[in-house]
């Protein structure tokens, strides 16, 4: 007899997963709708419809699941626990809808990365709780025969339960669901804290960190394995499982704290992938293809986005996850090496003057734009330049901001036509012919050291070649280094001028000057 409790979890799960054929069909329709939705998400024109299709698919799946019990009864099946306790379900649905809807309505566009992190966390929590609920159900089934749920009655009840036919693999998926769900939950919360500035965005590193994480991970897996395959009494197994829950929650925290704020796009897409895998694991427990397929789709999407982010930074996923990036270089420097000489600064009125008589302008937005919420002013300046006859475009670096596509969303909010947003590969060869480049709160993604200096931590990272433009204005509050903690030789170039202000202030004054000149 392998772990009795978990074998019984399979029995408990097996009992509730009887699914009516009509519901199965509805699930199939939902699967097709999800696939169609993701396919249509690949074009701006069809993306809105895609979101609608996906939400309809979800609604269909929920309604079908709720109807399942009644359909089974109508079909004459003997359903145990057929009495749906509507209080629990409706209560949960209403509370969740309220919180979700209010949150989604109130969150400002600039805080989208934080929102996605929080939503991700609630998805992880759901997977964790489902697996726990199945575990508790199993325990109670075991106790059903006896009176008081003491260890002895558990033992007796379990011994009396036929466990044949249930594979310990189901037990393993219960624990995987707990493990991944738990890590996703606390990991997302830490990512939220770092993104929102409630926690320091710095990488938290201490000696022996990787060893400690590795040992904890091994301990968690060992405990999980023991709970599944060790021959335990249900009480002990339940204790083990609760131990796994606690360890998974701690692991989620420890795995994300060493990763710095600017690497959060990678973390968020990876956690997104995890939440998909957790959903698929839940699907394995409940033998539900819809959960497995939808979970796999999300898992794949997270993986691909993670990969794209890593490529854009020219770093391996391992180096991002092991964390501490920027710390070593930031502490290792500080000598004369980092001092800037020959830096020319400029003023908003000078910038306004330059705006006359330029024929091509490219904006390079970065995280600084998001922080100072200057996207609307940026669009206004762009329109003013267009009115003067210049072509205006926006160069989007894949890792600008704190989320994949972060800049696109920000500028879309400010009504910048998406045709003007150009990706790095397409726009890089155009900088040579560009009169004016305005860098707004970006640093590492325009650092030419990535190309010139093989010693730089940024070496090999694809950058926007703004240094090739005729004139570059860098709007930045100070000469402080970016996330990578290195000096940016761009600031010393002859064609570059610094405008020391935050993006909002600089753009505001420039716009005023421009209007005054007219």
């Amino acid at each position: 007899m392998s772990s009795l409790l978990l074998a019984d979890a399979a029995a408990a799960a097996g009992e509730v997963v009887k699914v009516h054929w009509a519901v199965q069909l509805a699930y199939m329709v939902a699967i097709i709708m999800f696939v169609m939705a993701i396919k249509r998400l690949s074009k701006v024109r069809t993306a809105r419809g895609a979101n609608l299709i996906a939400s309809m698919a979800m609604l269909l799946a929920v309604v079908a699941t709720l109807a399942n019990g009644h359909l089974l009864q109508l079909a004459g099946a003997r359903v145990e626990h057929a009495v749906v306790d509507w209080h629990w379900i409706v209560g949960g649905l209403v509370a969740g809808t309220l919180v979700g809807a209010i949150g989604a309505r109130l969150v400002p566009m600039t805080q989208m990365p934080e929102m996605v992190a929080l939503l991700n966390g609630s998805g992880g929590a759901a997977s964790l709780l489902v697996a726990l609920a199945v575990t508790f159900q199993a325990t109670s089934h075991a106790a059903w025969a006896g009176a008081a749920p003491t260890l002895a009655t558990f033992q007796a009840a379990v011994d009396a339960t036929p466990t044949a036919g249930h594979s310990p693999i189901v037990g393993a998926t219960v624990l995987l669901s707990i493990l991944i769900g738990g890590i996703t939950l606390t990991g997302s919360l830490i990512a939220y804290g770092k993104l929102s500035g409630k926690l320091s965005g710095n990488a938290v590193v201490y000696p022996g960190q990787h060893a400690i994480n590795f040992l904890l991970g091994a301990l968690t897996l060992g405990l999980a394995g023991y709970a599944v395959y060790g021959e335990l009494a249900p009480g002990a197994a339940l204790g083990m499982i609760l131990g796994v829950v606690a360890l998974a929650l701690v692991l989620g925290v420890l795995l994300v704290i060493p990763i710095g704020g600017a690497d959060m796009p990678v973390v968020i897409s990876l956690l997104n992938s995890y939440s998909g895998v957790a959903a698929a694991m839940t699907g394995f427990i409940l033998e539900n293809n819809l959960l497995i397929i939808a979970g796999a789709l999300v898992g794949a999407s997270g993986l691909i986005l993670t990969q794209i982010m890593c490529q854009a930074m020219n770093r391996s996923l391992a180096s991002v996850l092991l964390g501490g990036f920027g710390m070593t270089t930031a502490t290792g420097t500080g000598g004369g090496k980092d001092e800037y000489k020959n830096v020319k600064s400029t003023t908003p009125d000078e910038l306004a003057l330059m705006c006359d008589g330029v024929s091509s302008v490219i904006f390079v937005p970065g995280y600084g734009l998001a922080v100072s919420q200057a996207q609307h002013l940026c669009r206004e300046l762009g329109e003013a330049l267009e009115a003067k006859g210049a072509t205006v475009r926006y160069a989007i670096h894949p890792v600008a901001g704190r989320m994949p596509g972060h800049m696109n969303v920000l500028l879309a909010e400010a009504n910048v036509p998406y045709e003007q947003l150009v990706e790095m590969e397409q726009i890089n060869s155009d900088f040579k012919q560009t009169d004016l480049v305005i860098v707004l709160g970006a640093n590492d993604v325009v650092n030419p050291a990535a190309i010139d200096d093989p010693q730089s931590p940024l070496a090999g990272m694809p950058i926007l070649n703004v240094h090739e433009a005729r004139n570059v204005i860098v709007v930045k509050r100070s000469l402080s280094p970016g996330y990578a903690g290195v000096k940016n030789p761009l600031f010393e170039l002859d064609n570059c001028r610094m405008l020391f202000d935050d993006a909002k202030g600089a753009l505001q004054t420039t716009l005023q000057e421009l209007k005054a000149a007219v």
Partner: protein
Amino acid sequence: MLFVTLITVFVVAIFLGVELIQKVPPTLHTPLMSGANAISGITILGALTCAYGAGDPQTANVMGALAVTAATINVVGGFMVTGRMLAMFGEKKEAK
């Protein structure tokens, strides 16, 4: 269902997902992420199934209800946020 069947479905779905998602342009990566995030709230079915098996001790019920709440936040919030973002992408097209 045989566990092998479930694994097969899982692996094939991952390949399908990779094929589909590679075609999504970077402009739409944020909506893709929050949309995918909403879809991962599909665990709501698991949550509903657990809450459904009522009559058993309160622990399982409470767990199930909490799971329903968490999953619903994920689903409703996710789709609404994605909708808001995509609406912004759409507006300019009409304005143009």
